[in-house]
């Protein structure tokens, strides 16, 4: 049974804090992704990685960075959290035409 696990289901952080969202997959996939989901906007791609230590900007990378030190782990970093980064964050890994998602992290920045 394939699995993508995000470290937190719910997070509340203060404006200006550095925030780490962790994602681990157990399928040995090379491709991993971070999305945010907002009402009416669907899933927007923040960053993706197709190999260890490789990263590419998605459609909305501003205010975010990522780290992929190991194949199974892909971290999303908010360098200085802002209220407009309050959202649902979804990690995914992909093989060919199948994408598998984690359960999501609901981040609230106050």
């Amino acid at each position, binding site marked *: 049974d394939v699995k*993508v696990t995000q470290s937190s289901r719910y997070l509340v952080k203060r404006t200006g804090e550095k925030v780490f969202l962790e994602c681990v997959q157990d399928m040995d996939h090379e491709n991993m992704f971070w999305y945010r989901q907002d009402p*009416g906007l*669907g899933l*927007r791609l923040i960053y*993706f990685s197709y190999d260890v230590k490789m990263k590419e900007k998605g459609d909305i990378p501003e205010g975010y960075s990522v780290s992929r030190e190991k194949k199974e782990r892909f971290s999303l970093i908010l360098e200085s959290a802002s209220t407009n980064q309050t959202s649902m964050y*979804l990690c995914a890994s992909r093989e060919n*035409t*199948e*994408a598998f*998602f984690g359960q999501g992290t609901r981040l609230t920045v106050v």
Partner: protein
Amino acid sequence: DQQVKQNSPSLSVQEGRISILNCDYTNSMFDYFLWYKKYPAEGPTFLISISSIKDKNEDGRFTVFLNKSAKHLSLHIVPSQPGDSAVYFCAAVYYGQNFVFGPGTRLSVLP
């Protein structure tokens, strides 16, 4: 400019009736399409897909239809059940590229 559109933000259907969710795309390079279902506070889960070489794919109560000339696909759920109430995302992809997701349609199936 959205490459994948789901023009209905929400849809309500009576239990037992048919639910039809629509999706339009603009990029003729897309050659594979997927539907994902998402419950609140959970990640999206894969529902059904279709390759551009087909015009229909069926899996139990779920059928996806593809009209390439119109750049349109639809998801039919028959019969609809209350457990089908969720947000449905249409996604499109072509070789070597990332998925492009639509904004989603919230389906409510009323008992």
